[in-house]
């Protein structure tokens, strides 16, 4: 893998931008090249949110914009409808099945249904749904080393937030492929 393009989409507040940033940080810590690019528009709150991450192992990232993605994460139904076509043939589509009861329509891609909200709720912290999803993405795609995700978690959940470290690590490993 020289270049891996990831796309995360959902609604504001679902931790979509954070997922992308965590992958980007992990890539940086692993001495890879990376770019993180959010969609941006005039609205300040609500609406849809998405971000693009491009990781390159052997050279600087040529282009932070994508026309197709190796890995696409959709956290709500409008994102599935809009971005299923973005997955490159043979690529991975991660569907947040907690909120999306539709199935993917394509058969030339790998589809993973992740009950991110349900799993997070069982762990006792519904706000870790995006970390559950991130765990699935990293588990399947191997795009960044797991230790680097730990490194970010340890930096993020320190001091007053230290009590959140364990639950986030658990959430990260909570999803298992069927």
């Amino acid at each position, binding site marked *: 893998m020289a270049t891996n393009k990831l796309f995360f989409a959902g609604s504001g507040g679902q931790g979509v931008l954070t997922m992308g*940033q965590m992958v*980007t*940080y992990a*890539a*940086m810590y692993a001495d890879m*090249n*990376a*770019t*993180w*690019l*959010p969609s*941006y*528009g*005039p609205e300040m709150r609500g609406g849809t949110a998405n971000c693009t991450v491009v990781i390159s192992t052997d050279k*600087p*990232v*040529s*282009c*932070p*914009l*994508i*026309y197709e993605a190796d890995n696409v994460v959709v956290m709500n139904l409008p994102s599935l409808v809009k971005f299923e076509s973005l997955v490159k043939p043979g690529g991975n589509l991660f569907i947040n099945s907690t909120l999306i009861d539709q199935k993917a329509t394509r058969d030339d891609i790998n589809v993973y249904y992740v009950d991110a909200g349900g799993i997070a709720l069982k762990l006792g912290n519904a706000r870790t749904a995006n970390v559950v999803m991130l765990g699935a993405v990293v588990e399947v795609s191997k795009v960044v080393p797991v230790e680097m995700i730990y490194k970010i978690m340890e930096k993020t959940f320190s001091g007053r937030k230290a009590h959140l470290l364990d639950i986030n690590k658990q959430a990260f490993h909570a999803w298992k492929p069927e």
Partner: protein
Amino acid sequence: MAEKVLMKGNEAFAEAVIRGGVRFYFGYPITPQSEIPEFMSRELPKRGGKFLQAESELGAVNMAYGCGAAGGNAFISSSSPGIALMQEGMSFLCSAEVPLTILNASRGGPGIGSIQPGQADYFQVTRGGGNGDYRIPVFAPASIQEAIDILYDAPALADEWRNPVMILVDGLMGQMMEPVVLPEPKTPVTSADIPKLKPWAISGSEKGQRSVVKSLRLQPEVLEQHVEKLFEKYNRMEQELQKVECDSIEDAEVVFVAFGTMARLAREAMEILQSQGIKAGLIRPISLWPFPYYAFDALTDKTKVVISTELSMGQMIQDVQLGVKGRFPVKLIHRTGGMLPTSIEIVDKTKKILEEVR
């Protein structure tokens, strides 16, 4: 080497220019660069600097002119329509030979336009939107790291030439995050140093001489002399400030010319074409004025076509034609209004163009 950090463009730009010695910021909010005044309002007071939110872009550029005339290292940032308002000041600053670092996050136009990336202000920034004979060096980085390096050097460059210096980015670069290495902070100039370092600055005549910073020259012969003196400087800038990056142009059949965000799309298009066996290259002007015309001299007879790729209806293409000097056909691939092509779109259009010229 310092540690890599992941930074959002707008904050990285602001941090870089502070590390480059800027201690005064004047600005007016405008999308997509408002994170810069926000950052400056938080950071400058902590580092002995001053932040002032202006009543308008006219106010901002003139505050910066006052600051620069008084010997301070000033920084202003805005976006296309705001930069249009600031043109009065830019013409004035150039005539009065007052240094200033300017960041322009250009967006779609004309008019209020859109807030998405645009390059339709190429004429405005390279040909001067203000009145009179003047030039402002304009640098268009294509990555956050490159923007940091240019912004870090910009205050010293502006001082050295006693002229404004502009860095042209867009909202995409402002919002993007990339791993970067920040340079070591320079020691800023203090007010007490100014009379010694910049005797021309208005810091009070108690320094031993009276200083006047001016641009009015009512006698035409005096103004002509002044402008000729300015152009001796601009001519030296043309020799010394050209910056360009060339990639795979020696045997390229098709050569893209692109700057900023568009250069990253063009680079990917080049790589896709190369992977398909089509020899493609890229000329990426980093300085838009002075434009690196000489880079085109390196093109060989293997080249079939030069393609200016732009986020406008085609403005840089005029400089590309000057650089190509009629040796090859020059074509345009473009989107405008804040629309971005995909690299695949560029590839497809390039193949069509190649069929036409072969």
